[in-house]
């Protein structure tokens, strides 16, 4: 039974205007579906409010006579039956990845019309108080919550980072719930907002050293398949990982399964000990990750790799950090590439990469640096691409299914080597 606080009842009664009323109605439908008993206040919301593809814009032009930002926000995000005037969002609201790079949109196969539509959407976002971050890594671009903070975030790789690495609290919210939360400051108090749902269920004994970014990605991919949406706690041969390794590990675990939180004993903020991570309970299962499991996950990720002739290398899934720019700039310095190479990041990180000369070194080699999106989000690869090389387990999971290409998975160095020679020579080392 859902309990409503006075301010929530007032919004439902229309005291805050019709848009807040419709937002609250949607949140009540959602909370009742979950079986939540109350809402929690949140001021940190990351979503994709009002953003529309040309399909959505044209759909609402045709079916509702209005394809404007406020129409898409009303009819689609809030699932309301009418177009409303949308007030400014409160709190710390940001827009995640989506759309296209505003410089290299033509290379992504986008039309000028779609690019101009995105510019209009961005003007509307700013007018409605939403911070335009355009990235799947808000935590690298200026939205970094604190431990215990209640958030309402989309983007599975950001959600798992938020819960596990930062110790803030969010469920994997969706487009509609985050848009509704931006107007109301409310999200169902369910799942990861509550202490009892943050404890580990599955114990992962890591028996083989996990050090490279590729290895962290493979371990995440293995664990996601093994535990699905449950909560793993890792012990054994895992040491403190840097943010880059957490980024790749969590993104992989959230794609092969639905991992939204993990613990690493002695490393992550809610795992001072194994007992604390497990909340005093016994694990429902213990799973080992050794050399044999590592080999099998490598083979799974390379199951779509047959032709060694690579046409395209994609880096930046999740969006590249400044450390990755430094590494790629070092590997490409003074070289020329034979394949296409696109590297994706946030506008914030690209600005720093530009200032440090990393972007120039990468582009001088023949690559492109792009923001806002990635090949999977934009469903865009260079024309004629048959075989891609990737250093992200998450992108390897999605891209071959979405654009029908062969794919190789390996280290960043394997990928850069493929870009320079045109051939894949990566192997499990």
């Amino acid at each position: 039974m859902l309990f409503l606080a006075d301010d929530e009842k007032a919004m439902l009664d229309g005291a805050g205007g019709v848009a807040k009323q419709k937002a609250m109605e949607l949140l009540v439908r959602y909370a009742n579906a979950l079986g939540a008993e109350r809402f929690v206040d949140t001021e940190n919301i990351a979503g994709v409010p009002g953003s529309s593809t040309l399909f959505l814009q044209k759909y609402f032009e045709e079916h509702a006579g209005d394809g404007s930002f406020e129409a898409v926000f009303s009819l689609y995000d809030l699932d309301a039956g009418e177009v409303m005037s949308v007030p400014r969002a409160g709190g710390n609201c940001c827009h995640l990845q989506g759309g296209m790079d505003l410089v290299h949109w033509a290379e992504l196969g986008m039309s000028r019309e779609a690019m101009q539509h995105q510019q209009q959407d961005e003007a509307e976002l700013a007018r409605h108080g939403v911070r335009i971050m355009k990235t799947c890594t808000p935590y690298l671009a200026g939205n970094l919550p604190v431990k215990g903070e209640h958030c309402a975030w989309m983007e599975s790789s950001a959600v798992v980072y938020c819960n596990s690495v930062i110790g803030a609290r969010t469920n994997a919210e969706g487009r509609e719930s985050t848009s509704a939360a931006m107007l109301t400051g409310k999200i169902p108090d369910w799942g990861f907002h509550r202490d009892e749902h943050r404890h580990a269920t599955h114990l992962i004994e890591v028996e083989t050293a996990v050090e490279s970014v590729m290895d962290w990605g493979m371990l995440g991919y293995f664990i996601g398949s093994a535990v699905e949406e449950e909560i793993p706690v890792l012990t054994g041969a895992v040491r403190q990982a840097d943010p880059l390794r957490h980024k790749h590990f969590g993104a992989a675990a959230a794609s092969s399964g639905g991992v939204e939180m993990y613990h690493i004993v002695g490393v992550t903020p809610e795992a001072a000990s194994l007992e604390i991570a497990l909340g005093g309970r016994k694990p429902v299962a213990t799973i080992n990750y050794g050399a044999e499991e590592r080999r099998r996950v490598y083979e799974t990720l390379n199951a779509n790799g047959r032709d060694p002739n690579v046409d395209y290398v994609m880096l930046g899934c999740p969006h590249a950090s400044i450390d990755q720019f430094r590494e790629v700039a070092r590997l490409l310095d003074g070289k020329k590439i034979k394949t296409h190479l696109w590297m994706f990041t946030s506008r914030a990180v690209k600005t720093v990469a530009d200032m440090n000369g990393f972007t120039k070194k990468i582009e001088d080699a023949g690559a492109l640096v792009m923001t806002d999106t990635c090949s999977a989000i934009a469903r865009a690869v260079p024309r004629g691409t048959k075989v891609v090389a990737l250093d992200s387990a998450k992108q390897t999971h999605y891209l071959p299914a979405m654009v029908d290409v062969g794919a190789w998975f390996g280290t960043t160095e394997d990928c850069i080597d493929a870009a320079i020679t045109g051939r894949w020579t990566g192997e499990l080392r």
Partner: protein
Amino acid sequence: MIVLHGRGIVGGCVEGEALVTRETISGWGGIDPMTGTVIETRHELHGQSFKDKVLVFPGAKGSSGWSNAFHMTRLTKSAPLAMVFNQMTTKIALGAVVTRVPAVTELDQDPLSVIETGDWVKVDGDRGVVEVIKKRL
């Protein structure tokens, strides 16, 4: 006829043919919202569409774009007729709400054991009841 009792999370009453999978489904990147077809490479439903079928599955996984992908199937008229599932998550709760198809969970028998693809299934999201007429007796 077999009758299962559970909790309706989206109201309405429909009947149709079941499409059953023992594997969780990804929304964004796992289905094509224009046709309702499962596109995840190694999924057992790969290439099959749930359009106008009663989708019986363990639950949702993957991207937080789950609700958006299923919401889109409502616009493209490729949505499932109803959803019957086991594992509650934010993805599936929000997805079912915005897809606006009858949805039932927390059933007193495992729907994945009782229902097979091709069975005729009536889903009552108002009362939380699922009725199954087996294709093969």
